[in-house]
């Protein structure tokens, strides 16, 4: 019933009434002012009457609502155990879902905070041989000059480093290189100062634009930051601008550097190390733009097939990797909520049937059916609101925890919080749940038989065994099966990832990144450092390399001497410069040939070691030792020209995994002293194998580095175990959440089955008494109840398993070395649920068996 709308109508009506009265009195000969007074007198207090008329509408609604609430609160307080159990169950369900929603909302749903973010795309080139690639500077310039689809196209060089001197101990800062249009394309303006001018883009160094983070953390938010001079990589650079905080794109950037197109190494067409982005023109579809750029790409390389350009919406690019993780966590949270709703329904069901007497009395005293139904909904609402509020607190706490601990290494995690959207979500969820679970009391109520209920003081809800609530139990069991299977699949994948041989021994390894800005002197520095580190007490082995296991690596394009090389389809493999002891230090086994030795230096003949995957890919069934290949390293700063230098394959090592949960890929290794460009000496990882806990050696190693070369920054000093731990962070995140949801689901399902069967036994006490009185064996009664419960469980298991197969397929990208129908995960889930269900059925069944026939029959 809506409130009173006719406010103005009423006033008008009363005024008309008074006027008519006055007119009549005047017509009867009374003076006008006297008539007005008389009319008012006879009418009464206009304001009060208007108010009373309005109350007619308002009062009814408010009064019943308040009465319902008060009555509801009283009923709940009379049975606080019930209220607390339901509210807590709800709090957990709403809390879990609100927390996950907050995470999903801030990571996946919230639009990027840039001008018209839907038109921003990452631009990738694809080819069969080389997979997904960015672009080279010549390609970028072709795209920029020739395309008809983009307002802007920009290039970026993410995550390179500068050495910062003169601000305490020298250290590395993280730089993101960018082309002129980058910030204008996003619509982001400098917080202080200005951006580089187009002319400045052709000169490296001199001016520098810093990030908000660097300004705050390293320069203390210095208000006079502009024209301050910093020493980066040995050159003085003047700060000209500070960019605002960019939590979505390259959040760890310290310096927004320039991508200077004039460098010779920038001009290599097949050296595709730049990341490309663009803003599409209005009215141009991504497909049209893809065709446009693909044509330009083909013109540039002179080939017409094999490669193509793909556009990925920028937000998908940033969040793509975690989307599947979050999807599965969200689905799991939803299932938990479903199970909770089922449990709450049982609770309400049991309680309502106990209250049938009370309800019957109310009905016979004249309460309308609608009124009583509303009473139930109000009571549910009361509990749901309390539960929702507690759940919200729970969600806010856990989201805070996820953001603070950076659980799962999620992108855009900094801004994660329970915001108004999440608040609304929690509220709507509470309302929806309270309406949903009102079904149970309503269903009982609709079958209420006034006469018999009033007579006996209890209802005849009848056997639960025949009621439609059986479906509820089946779907609860099914949800639990799905959760358990999903959790099982994740556990299995995680276990496989952690226990599959990574191709090296990660224990007792300490790693650090050493960046030197002046290359040539590296040729003396690194060998000396390796030698002196190896002689430290407690150190078994030391080596340097420009890659680290599980941290990605550079790539090189391959040329063979034993076959024709197609210049348009050059294969690329992972490639790494290493020192002689690298494999021995990390514990990788040699499968054929030999390791590198001291003679494999700049003076020795060029050699290469390949991994097993590469041997299988390019010399299947043959012995690769002695074969000749040339490997052109690609990447920023690399120039690919000059005569091709062929290297002899001298050894085959086992595969070193690029990440614990990634499959092995073909890779080659070359002696770092054989890099004739000296480029490799710009920065190398130091790897130290120790005899005891590697963490104890961090200071020793740091001192050793400084003994060889004072002021050498030592960055990212970590144990290899830590590195590996981090690579599994997203997997651990989803496993942790889904795993705890599954455990929760198991517990709730046990409670649910127990509650439901116990309820049904209580309803059928008389029947059991009768059966026993008529000579049924107690075992038969036990079996009867057990069969009832287990049949429902079995139905749930079957339907749940079928749904779980669908779930498993959908999450195949998260599975590692495990199929979606992994028998272990399914058997585990089914056995666990069967055991839990059997226990949950047994106790009520036991009680049914112990029914005293006399007591049962007399209890009516």
């Amino acid at each position, binding site marked *: *019933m809506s409130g*009173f709308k006719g406010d103005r*109508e*009423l006033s008008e*009506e*009363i005024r*008309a*009434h008074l*006027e*008519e*009265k006055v*007119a009549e009195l005047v017509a009867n000969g009374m003076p006008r002012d006297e008539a007005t007074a008389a009319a008012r007198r*006879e*009418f*009464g*207090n*206009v304001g*009060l*009457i*208007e108010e*009373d*008329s*309005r*109350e*007619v*509408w308002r*009062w*009814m609604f408010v009064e019943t609502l308040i009465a319902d609430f008060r009555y509801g609160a009283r009923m709940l307080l009379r049975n606080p155990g019930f209220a607390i159990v339901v509210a807590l169950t709800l709090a957990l369900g709403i809390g879990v879902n609100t927390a996950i929603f907050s995470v999903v909302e801030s990571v996946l749903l919230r639009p990027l905070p840039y001008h018209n973010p839907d038109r921003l795309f990452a631009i990738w080139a694809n080819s069969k041989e080389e997979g997904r690639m960015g672009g080279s500077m010549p390609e970028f310039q072709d795209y920029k000059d020739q395309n008809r689809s983009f307002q802007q196209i920009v290039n970026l060089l993410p995550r390179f480093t500068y050495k910062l001197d003169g601000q305490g101990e020298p250290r590395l800062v993280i730089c993101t290189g960018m082309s002129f249009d980058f910030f204008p394309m996003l619509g982001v303006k400098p917080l202080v100062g200005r951006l580089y001018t187009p002319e400045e883009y052709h000169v490296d160094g001199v001016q520098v634009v810093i990030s908000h983070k660097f300004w705050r953390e390293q320069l203390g938010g210095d208000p006079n930051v502009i024209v301050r001079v910093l020493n980066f990589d040995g050159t003085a650079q003047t700060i000209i601008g500070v960019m605002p905080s960019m939590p979505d794109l390259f959040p760890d950037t310290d310096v927004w550097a320039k991508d200077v197109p004039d460098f010779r190494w920038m001009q290599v067409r097949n050296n595709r190390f730049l990341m490309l982005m663009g803003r599409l023109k209005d009215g141009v579809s991504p497909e049209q733009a893809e065709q446009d750029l693909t044509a330009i790409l083909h013109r540039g390389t002179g080939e017409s097939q094999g490669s193509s350009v793909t556009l990925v919406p920028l937000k998908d690019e940033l969040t793509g990797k975690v989307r599947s993780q979050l999807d599965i966590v969200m689905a799991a949270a939803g299932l938990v909520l479903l199970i909770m709703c089922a449990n709450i329904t049982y609770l309400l069901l049991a309680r309502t049937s106990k209250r049938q007497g009370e309800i019957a009395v109310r009905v016979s005293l004249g309460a309308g059916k609608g009124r009583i139904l509303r009473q139930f909904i109000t009571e549910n609402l009361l509990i749901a609101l309390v539960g929702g509020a507690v759940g919200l607190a729970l969600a806010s706490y856990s989201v805070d925890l996820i953001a603070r601990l950076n659980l799962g290494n999620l992108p855009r995690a900094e801004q994660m919080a329970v915001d108004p959207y999440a608040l609304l979500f929690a509220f709507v969820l509470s309302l929806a749940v309270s309406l949903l679970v009102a079904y149970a009391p309503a269903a009982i109520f609709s079958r209420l038989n006034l006469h018999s209920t009033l007579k006996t003081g209890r209802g005849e809800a009848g056997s639960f065994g025949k009621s439609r609530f059986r479906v509820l139990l089946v779907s609860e069991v099914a949800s639990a099966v799905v959760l358990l299977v999903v959790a099982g699949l994740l556990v299995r994948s995680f276990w496989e990832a952690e226990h599959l041989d990574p191709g090296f021994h990660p224990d007792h390894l300490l790693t650090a990144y050493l960046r030197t800005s002046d290359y040539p002197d590296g040729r003396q520095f690194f060998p000396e450092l390796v030698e002196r580190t190896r002689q430290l007490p407690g150190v078994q082995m030391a080596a340097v390399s420009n890659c680290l296991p599980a941290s990605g690596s550079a790539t090189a394009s391959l040329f063979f001497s034993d076959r024709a090389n197609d210049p348009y389809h050059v294969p690329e493999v992972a490639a790494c410069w290493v020192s002689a002891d690298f494999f021995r230090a990390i514990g990788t086994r040699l499968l054929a040939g030999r390791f590198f030795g001291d003679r494999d230096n700049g003076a020795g003949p060029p050699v290469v070691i390949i991994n097993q995957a590469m041997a299988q890919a390019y010399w299947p069934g043959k012995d690769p030792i002695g074969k000749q290949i040339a490997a052109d390293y690609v990447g920023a700063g690399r120039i690919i020209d000059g005569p091709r230098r062929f290297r002899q394959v001298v050894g085959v090592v086992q595969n070193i995994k690029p990440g614990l949960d990634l499959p092995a890929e073909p890779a080659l290794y070359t002696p770092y002293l054989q890099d004739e460009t000296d480029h490799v000496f710009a920065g190398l990882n130091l790897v130290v194998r120790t005899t005891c806990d590697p963490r104890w050696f961090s200071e020793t190693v740091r001192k050793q580095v400084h003994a060889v070369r004072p002021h050498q920054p030592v960055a990212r000093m970590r144990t290899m175990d830590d590195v590996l731990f981090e690579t599994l962070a997203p997997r651990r995140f989803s496993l942790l959440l889904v795993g705890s949801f599954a455990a929760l689901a198991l517990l709730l399902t046990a409670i649910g089955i127990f509650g439901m069967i116990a309820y049904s036994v209580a309803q059928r006490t008389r029947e059991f008494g009768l059966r026993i009185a008529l000579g049924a064996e107690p075992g038969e009664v036990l079996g009867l109840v057990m069969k009832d419960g287990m049949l429902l469980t079995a139905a749930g298991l079957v339907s749940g398993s079928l749904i779980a197969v669908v779930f498993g397929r959908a999450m195949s990208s998260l599975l590692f070395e495990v199929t979606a129908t992994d028998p272990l995960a399914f058997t585990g889930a089914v056995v666990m649920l069967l055991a839990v269900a059997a226990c949950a059925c047994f106790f009520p069944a036991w009680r049914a068996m112990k029914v005293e026939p006399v007591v049962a029959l007399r209890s009516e």
Partner: protein
Amino acid sequence: MKQAEPRDLFPGALEMMILRTLKRQPLHGYALVQHIKRTSNDLLQIEEGSLYPALQRLLKDDLVKAEWGISATNRRVRTYKLTPAGAKHLERQVSSFERMLEGISRVLRPSES
């Protein structure tokens, strides 16, 4: 809602009279008051204003409906009309009232036995 003094003889009496009056013909507020006063031979002195809350109650329960129109005296007035539900309600109320009245009068009547 405080009430200084009872406006009706008993709860529902005013509503009953309104319904009865409207059953005869649709009327607007002022005309209703005049009609009730007149037909009760001014025995019932109802405060004119108390009519309006009662009308709102009837509107809310769908016993009457209202429409704006022009009265015989050429005024813009809101005319009330009995709905079928109102007619039924009136019938029930009247019969129960008559029974009550009969009961009361029997008790009040000097003993016949």
